[in-house]
């Protein structure tokens, strides 16, 4: 049980930890105050609790598709927020800067709501089975805390790795990572909609489990950072590539605009 709980909590915190680390690195470079983070963590935790106590009703919405549709909507919204950040980082639009902390906060709120709900539900079941506080504390809370701390530590390391580079290089790393995470979230949302037959599913295009086993620690890390899927369908591949191409198009456009403004300044 101890290892099961550590693994479960770690899996849930890993993705959030890595994304929050990227967002924090952006905020630190831009010298934003941390209010967006505290607000995001607090509101996200409350919403996750509200979602978990209303989970029964939500699950039965839309002919048992409510859970997937709500979670997919949250993931797509987070992906959109991340792409807005990517656009802001690429085009360096200063007038939009006051809105960025709101985008960061919304991202954290939705991310936490999604990830924490599952943990609240898991612990509600755990406490239902283990009524004595010794087991609750030893097996549930302590092992959950270990999983949480491993997830947070990986996030801290990730943040330090981004901040190690110069601001210019960090900007490129942030753009790349945000695009990959957004693409991964889009793939996850697509899978949820396939699960309830809202999006048509097809056979997997390839199986790269021989290269990176999706269930392994490396598989979970690459899933959290790059949205790695060992057996993606055509829809997922097209969606993933579409988001990456959006970033590439924005980069080309910004270079084109920069060149044009340099020429007009020279004239």
């Amino acid at each position, binding site marked *: 049980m101890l290892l099961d709980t550590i*693994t479960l909590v770690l899996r849930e915190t890993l993705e959030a930890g890595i994304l929050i680390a990227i967002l924090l690195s952006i905020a630190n470079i831009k010298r934003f105050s941390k209010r967006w983070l505290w607000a995001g963590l607090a509101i996200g935790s409350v919403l996750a609790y509200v979602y978990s106590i209303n989970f029964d009703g939500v699950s039965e919405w839309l002919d048992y598709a409510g859970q997937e549709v709500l979670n997919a909507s949250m993931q797509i919204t987070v992906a959109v927020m991340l792409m807005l950040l990517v656009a802001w980082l690429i085009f360096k639009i200063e007038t939009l800067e006051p809105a960025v902390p709101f985008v960061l906060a919304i991202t954290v709120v939705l991310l936490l709501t999604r990830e924490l709900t599952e943990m609240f539900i898991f612990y509600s*079941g*755990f406490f239902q089975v283990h009524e004595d506080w010794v087991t609750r504390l030893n097996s549930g809370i302590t092992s959950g805390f270990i999983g949480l701390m491993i997830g947070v530590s990986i996030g801290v390391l990730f943040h330090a790795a981004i901040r190690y580079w110069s601001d210019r290089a960090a900007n490129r790393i942030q753009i790349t990572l945000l695009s990959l995470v957004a693409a991964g979230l889009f793939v996850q949302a697509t899978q949820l909609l396939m699960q309830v037959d809202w999006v048509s599913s097809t*056979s997997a295009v390839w199986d790269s489990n021989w290269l990176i086993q999706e269930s392994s620690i490396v598989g979970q890390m690459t899933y959290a950072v790059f949205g790695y899927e060992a057996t993606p369908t055509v829809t997922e591949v097209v969606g993933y590539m579409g988001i990456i191409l959006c970033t590439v198009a924005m980069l080309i456009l910004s270079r084109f605009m920069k060149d044009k403004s340099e020429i007009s300044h020279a004239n």
Partner: protein
Amino acid sequence: MIKVIRLVCLALSLSISSVSFAKPPIIEIRIKDHLFYPAEVKVPANKKVKLLVINEDPTPEEFESYELNREKVILGNRKAVIFIGPLKPGKYPFFGEFNMSTALGTVIAE
């Protein structure tokens, strides 16, 4: 132009009708004492299948599979619907994430 519009309408109506009328087979899986029954689920290969997962335990469980790319939380004494496939012939393990050491099963597509 009108011909193209007619063709598009025809294609759309055909796709909608195939969604509405081609109902996938329903396969029932039960969760009891943190175990899946049956633990081996046989499904037709290359066909979409609707899994009806009934959790008979009082505690919640999460049906999860990396190979099937599926994850769904099912509260205690509740049921859930999960569509899988079309799957190539083979074995696709699944597990209960809240009880990983006991709740284990395999979908066999053949």
